[in-house]
């Protein structure tokens, strides 16, 4: 895109569509936006090389060299680490501006830390579970990320703490991975800095996806009753959506903004799950002290904070249904004490409303994605009702025909509308 535009600039100036000053400004703007291609390629290959060497060393170490005496093996454990640290120090001293040097020395050193600890525990048969090992590794990696401002290092760190959290939460005997929370907070200042200063870089997009994936993966670690987990998830997806709507994120393309994609998709899935009556048939007072509900409430408080911030900035938030759906779902819990049927019916109505909103939103904005997302939501809701309601085949058939007709009609209308606009 950028290249073809830059090629056309000369022609545009010749045909007096734009002035030569404007052409210069456009060229400069693109140059500022994108670092030179060579530098970027060097960074990518540097990092791939460093990671391959690091992983290769881990495998070589895993062979466990019995032929060497203990002392020699111990010295070897420190060699990659010292090399990595020396490379990092050289980068900071002589080449701090080189992205390739910072990224490759950072990722290599982080892997070398793992090599050193692994080799020492192997030499002395030091027991220690995988979780403890990952925790130590991550704690040492964190300051390295800040020192070298390495995005790949940050990605490795997030992957590491997520693995650690998973080991603690999902491996027998499972515990609540409390330490995961401060570990995640540890990378947030770096992350925010990247978002504010390099929001359009690919590295930052990767950070977004890693953080979102990590949060979604780790939430069940903090759950109590499995059936109440959808409420906690609804609150988490609400928080994600709100973060995606913040000024720094809102202007990004959808692919670069996983907060919005995952927030909207996840909330819809949770609505469908909660539309089943079984979710709501339980003792409410037991449920209130459940970890899932506590997680949901904490996340809702966080979400409220972001909503208030957005309102203060003068944004229109009342008309966004995603502001209301997650708290509404959690509030169904007290209502379910009165009647589980009523709760289920209300959730079904909310889901239909959300589906219709997306269809209208898609039509108004000429967006096929939103339109079909809305239609699919309603179709899935209908299929879900076949499981817990006794509906006659004729009615089921009619419902499906209705949704099918709506699919064709809405899509046809939107495409026609587009044709009209372009002609």
């Amino acid at each position, binding site marked *: 895109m950028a290249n073809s535009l830059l090629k056309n600039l000369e022609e545009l100036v010749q045909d007096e569509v734009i002035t030569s000053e404007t052409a210069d400004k456009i060229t400069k703007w693109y140059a500022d936006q994108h670092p030179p291609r060579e530098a970027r390629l060097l960074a990518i290959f540097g990092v791939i090389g460093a990671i391959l060497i690091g992983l290769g060393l881990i495998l070589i170490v*895993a062979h466990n060299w019995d032929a060497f005496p203990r002392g020699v093996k111990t010295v070897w454990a420190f060699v990659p*680490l010292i090399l990595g640290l020396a490379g990092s120090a050289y980068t900071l001293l002589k080449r701090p501006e080189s992205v390739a040097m910072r990224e490759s020395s950072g990722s290599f050193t982080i892997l070398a830390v793992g090599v050193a600890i692994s080799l*020492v525990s192997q*030499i002395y*048969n*030091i027991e220690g579970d995988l979780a403890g*090992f990952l925790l130590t590794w991550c704690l*040492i990696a964190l300051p390295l990320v*800040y020192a070298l401002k390495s995005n790949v290092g940050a990605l490795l760190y997030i992957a590491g703490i997520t693995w650690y959290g998973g080991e603690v939460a999902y491996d027998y005997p499972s*515990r609540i991975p409390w330490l995961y929370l401060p570990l995640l907070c540890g990378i947030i200042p770096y992350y925010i800095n990247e978002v504010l200063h390099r929001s359009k870089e690919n590295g930052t997009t990767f950070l977004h996806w890693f953080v979102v994936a990590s949060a979604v993966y780790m939430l069940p670690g903090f759950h109590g009753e499995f059936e109440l987990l959808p409420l906690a998830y609804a609150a988490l997806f609400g928080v994600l959506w709100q973060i995606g709507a913040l000024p720094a994120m809102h202007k990004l393309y959808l692919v670069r903004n996983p907060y919005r994609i995952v927030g909207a998709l996840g909330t819809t899935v949770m609505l469908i799950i909660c539309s089943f009556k079984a979710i709501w048939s339980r003792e409410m007072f037991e449920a209130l002290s459940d970890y899932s509900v506590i997680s949901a409430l904490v996340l809702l408080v966080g979400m409220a904070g972001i909503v208030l911030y957005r309102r203060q900035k003068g944004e229109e938030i009342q008309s966004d249904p995603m502001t209301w759906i997650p708290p509404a779902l959690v509030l169904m819990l007290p209502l379910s004490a009165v009647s589980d049927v009523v709760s289920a019916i209300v959730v079904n109505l909310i889901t239909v409303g959300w589906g219709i909103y997306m269809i209208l939103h898609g039509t108004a904005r000429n967006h096929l994605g939103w339109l079909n997302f809305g239609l699919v939501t309603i179709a899935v809701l209908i299929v879900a009702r076949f499981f817990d309601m006794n509906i006659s085949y004729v009615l089921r058939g009619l419902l499906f025909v209705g949704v099918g007709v709506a699919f064709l009609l809405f899509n046809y209308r939107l495409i026609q509308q587009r044709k009209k606009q372009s002609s």
Partner: protein
Amino acid sequence: MKTPKSQWIFFIIAAVAAVAVPLYMVIQSELAWNDGTEYRFRCAAYDPFDPFRGSYVRLRFDQANITLEHESLAAPGDAAYAVLGVDSIGFAQITHLADAIPAEGDYITVEVRDTVHTDFGVRYRLELPFTKYFMEENKAPVVETKFRGLNVAQMENTWAVVSVRNGHAVTKDLFLDGTSANELAAQTREGE
């Protein structure tokens, strides 16, 4: 462009921690290896794999299932201090489970997995802190095969040599029916 001071501070913290953590592990282990008291833990051996640290022989100790007359305060999932003694034929034996670091005697930190009250006392299922014995990748499977080939009496005669100092334990060797596992693996390869 000059690197800001803050980045240097982070680098120094990372560098010190990166060297100090493995170095501390080495020093503690060397002290236990050289100055620690050696115990022979009777065990069974089988062969799993660790993605970072390679092949090891997993050891299953008879001392991981013990019955004690007294009751420890430790609940399943808690850590406890196991005080070590030696039985009549010279194998290591856990004599006591303490809730705090014992003032006297060698001890290891164990995790209580399960407790059952019986007529003879309290039965504990424990996780000992040295269930892995790392070996070269082609040796660990050999040792496992050897172990499975042993008869009951020979299996009873299998033990790990563990050196203990101030609660830090280092596994020095593994003996299958009285022969060192490393020697056994080497013999097998020569014989092939």
